């Protein structure tokens, strides 16, 4: 082999090696589309913050998917189909992010509205607005299938119509929000998933027309009161589960607060305001749970119909569903100050989005 031929061969080897490259950091966002019975899937690239639709999106699901949750393994997704009172189980392709439904669907109560899962991924809780109950399922860690526990569903006070659920950081207490009764119902949760309303302090009354709640790792619970234009801040007792207002609660928001989300590192709270199409941002007092608005809050660009807010696991991006604008809006979060970027990125979805989750 001549010197020139060796040089050619070396060039080829180096070029081939350069093709290997490093995998960029990305996350997949799954968005429920109730009016078209689908789940939109978008890949978000961390470096650029841009979105790419996955091949096959939107993935067909049952009638009126209104809520979605991911198992902690990242292999399974659970979607509530409100109009047919059941849950769809999906397997998630780890490479492509595509969803494949695994039938049969699991029955819920009437008018299932939302769901939540414990941190271990062993229990799934579903709020049934129509039947005033909470259904509890054990989750098979191998194949993700659901099995309703024997004592489920757990009936609630007539007229409760539970709209939102949150678990304490220990998983020992479940908080169910009633928009009808302006209250939070508190249940102890045993290892099998059985619920028992705590004897004292439940229900706990909050502001008018509460819509959503969120729990921090430090057991502070925040509730958006859409008619009061406030956020209730509550301290949850880790042993008894009881709630008590934090100093300064309730805290003012902009007009008609809807959704809210806590930063995964716990220091900030973000509240979407549908009346003013913006996001109120607060610093959370880690000891007392009080909220202090950030200097530049509120931040514009949320759209007039924000229904859901989530943050990626690294705390870099805040995503908001805009039901009216049929978009997913992305803000970059300043990890030091909690401030949101002024240039937002919007991704269109095929129809009005309601809920979303972001995979790791």
């Amino acid at each position, binding site marked *: 082999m001549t010197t020139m031929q060796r040089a050619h061969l070396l060039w080829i080897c180096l070029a081939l090696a350069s093709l290997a490259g490093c995998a960029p950091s990305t996350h997949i966002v799954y968005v429920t589309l109730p009016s078209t019975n689908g789940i939109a899937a978008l*890949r978000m690239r961390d470096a650029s913050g841009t979105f790419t639709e996955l*091949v096959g999106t939107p993935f067909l699901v049952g009638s009126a998917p209104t809520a979605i949750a991911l198992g902690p393994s990242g292999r399974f997704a659970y979607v509530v189909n409100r109009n047919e009172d059941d849950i769809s189980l999906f397997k998630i392709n780890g490479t492509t992010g595509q969803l494949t439904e695994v039938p049969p669907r699991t029955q819920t109560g009437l008018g299932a509205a939302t769901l939540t899962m414990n941190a271990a991924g062993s229990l799934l809780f579903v709020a049934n607005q129509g039947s005033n109950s909470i259904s509890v399922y054990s989750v098979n860690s191998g194949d993700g299938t659901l099995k309703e526990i024997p004592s489920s569903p757990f009936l609630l006070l007539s007229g409760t119509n539970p709209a939102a659920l949150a678990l304490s950081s220990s998983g020992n207490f479940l908080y169910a929000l009633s928009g009808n009764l302006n209250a939070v119902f508190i249940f102890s949760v045993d290892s099998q998933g059985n619920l028992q309303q705590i004897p004292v302090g439940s229900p706990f009354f909050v502001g008018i027309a509460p819509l959503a709640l969120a729990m921090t790792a430090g057991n502070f619970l925040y509730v958006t009161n859409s008619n009061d234009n406030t956020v209730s801040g509550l301290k949850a007792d880790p042993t008894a589960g009881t709630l008590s207002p934090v100093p300064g609660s309730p805290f003012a928001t902009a007009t008609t607060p809807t959704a809210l989300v806590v930063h995964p590192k716990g220091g900030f709270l973000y509240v979407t305001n549908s009346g003013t199409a913006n996001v109120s941002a607060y610093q959370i007092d880690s000891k007392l749970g009080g909220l202090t608005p950030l200097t530049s809050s509120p931040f514009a660009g949320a759209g007039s119909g924000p229904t859901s807010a989530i943050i990626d696991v690294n705390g870099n991006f805040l995503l908001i569903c805009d039901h009216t604008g049929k978009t997913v809006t992305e803000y970059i979060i300043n990890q030091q100050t909690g401030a949101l970027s002024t240039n937002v990125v919007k991704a269109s979805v095929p129809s009005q989005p309601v809920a979303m989750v972001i995979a790791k």
Partner: protein
Amino acid sequence: MRRWLLFVIPLLLGSLAAAQDVPRAQVFGGISYLHFDSEPLGFSNYSNLGGYTFSPAFNITHRFGAVAEISGQYGPHVNLRDLTFGGQALFPRGNKLFFVHGLFFDARSFVSVGTGAGSTSRAIIGGVGMDLPLSPRFSLRVFQVDYVRSMLFNTDQNSVRVSAGLVYKWKTIHHRGHKAPGTPAP
């Protein structure tokens, strides 16, 4: 700068010996590796696919010919097939035959992804390669590097494909004033 250009550089540095004979007709068959641009399809990164390339060619003159190509590359989540037609320019140098081809006159890419979703689009392929003679009938295609542009699922993909294999050839186009020794008549 696109990475595929790295493959062009060694060709530009090729030796400049006197031009020699080229085959009148040839068929290339070999293995191929495709660095497929699957990010526009929602994948997190490029997909590395393996498969085959099959390419018959008919050289009209000592410098120019027509070429067709069928290729298929496969992976666990995406499969791609190309059917293309175009032309090639030949650059014989010593005992090596360099070529440049462009395939776009009628090019089709077919892909299926994951759960079976499929798309068909036009494709444009441009590439270079080099053949080394093994015998009067066979040559070794040491490399063929192609840039593959497709427009699947209404998005653009820019991919790189590398192939190697065997070329079967027959008849010869002699360079003017040159007779290649030992080239048999078919």
